[in-house]
């Protein structure tokens, strides 16, 4: 009826290389976003390193950011000594936040977490960190006993409980950790592209252009919503990293 054709999904997620084409080191827009986000994250670490006692300017910004992670996430979720994990949580939060926020920045408009490579590797890295933290804290056998045998379970139920706990802790946790970040960002991206394509095709229509304010309002609202979702997904990823490390490494008895 409207002759609208939504572009195939590869057009909004697969970007062509713009430099070093046809080599394994081809650079495309996603690569550029990764490099910029990594640069901003490293900037936070470098700026917080200046030694002025009363921080001003950019050093203040970096210190406020790190304090947000330390008080807001690390202290809330971790009973163990949390200071050694604050650099990891800061790097994770700010890298994911900067790769997500490129969704709404005009020239780029692509959340780099909408390709599954980034969430996959971050979830894998966090998986190795919490298994390593648990083994370092309990010993290899003690770690599996801590994770797989909940306290106060009668011994006869263990053949049922242990496989469920294996699947829930060691298989579903990293998978859901990855899919949550990936699918949220991909869904937001598709939503924004849908409303934008609808606005663009209504602009050149005959009398249907009277409906134009609706998708335009939709785009404006969803850009605001995407800012919230970018921050929230980075926050939830980092929060869950803290929770998983705590559940692996804490001595609660």
């Amino acid at each position, binding site marked *: 009826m409207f002759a609208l054709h939504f572009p195939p999904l590869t057009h909004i997620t697969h970007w062509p290389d713009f430099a070093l084409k046809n080599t394994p080191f081809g650079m495309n827009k996603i690569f550029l976003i990764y490099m910029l986000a990594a640069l901003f994250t490293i900037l936070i670490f470098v700026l917080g390193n200046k030694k002025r006692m009363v921080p001003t300017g950019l050093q203040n910004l970096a210190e406020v950011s790190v304090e947000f992670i330390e008080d807001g996430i690390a202290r809330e979720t971790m009973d163990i000594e949390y200071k050694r994990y604050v650099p990891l949580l800061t790097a994770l939060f700010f890298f994911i936040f900067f790769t997500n926020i490129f969704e709404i920045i005009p020239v780029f408009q692509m959340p780099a977490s909408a390709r599954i490579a980034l969430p996959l590797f971050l979830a894998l890295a966090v998986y190795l960190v919490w298994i390593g933290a648990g083994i370092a804290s309990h010993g290899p056998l003690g770690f599996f006993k801590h994770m797989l045998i909940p306290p106060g379970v009668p011994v006869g139920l263990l053949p049922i409980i242990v496989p469920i706990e294996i699947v829930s802790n060691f298989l579903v946790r990293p998978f*859901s950790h990855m899919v949550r970040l990936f699918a949220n960002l991909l869904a937001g991206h598709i939503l924004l592209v849908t409303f934008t394509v609808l606005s663009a095709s209504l602009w050149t229509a005959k009398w249907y252009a009277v409906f134009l304010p609706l998708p335009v309002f939709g785009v404006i609202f969803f850009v605001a919503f995407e800012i919230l979702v970018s921050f929230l997904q980075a926050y939830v990823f980092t929060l*869950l990293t803290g929770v998983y490390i705590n559940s692996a490494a804490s001595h609660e008895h």
Partner: protein
Amino acid sequence: MLLAEITDTGLAALTYGIGALGPGIGIGYLVGQSVQAMARQPEAAGMVRTTMFLGIAFVEALALIGFVVFFLGQA
């Protein structure tokens, strides 16, 4: 006259739709209970808010796995 036809894409969309029912109810209940907790005891609001975000993340993950299943089920 053919009014509707069951295709792969249609079934995948229906799958996602049914799969979004549970998390919708779950998140609504969760946020409602956490608002009630924050109203009963305002000094615990920070802890309740953090636990609320944690709970929302777990519940929303199920809806998003359904979303991924939609793309896997498309032709």
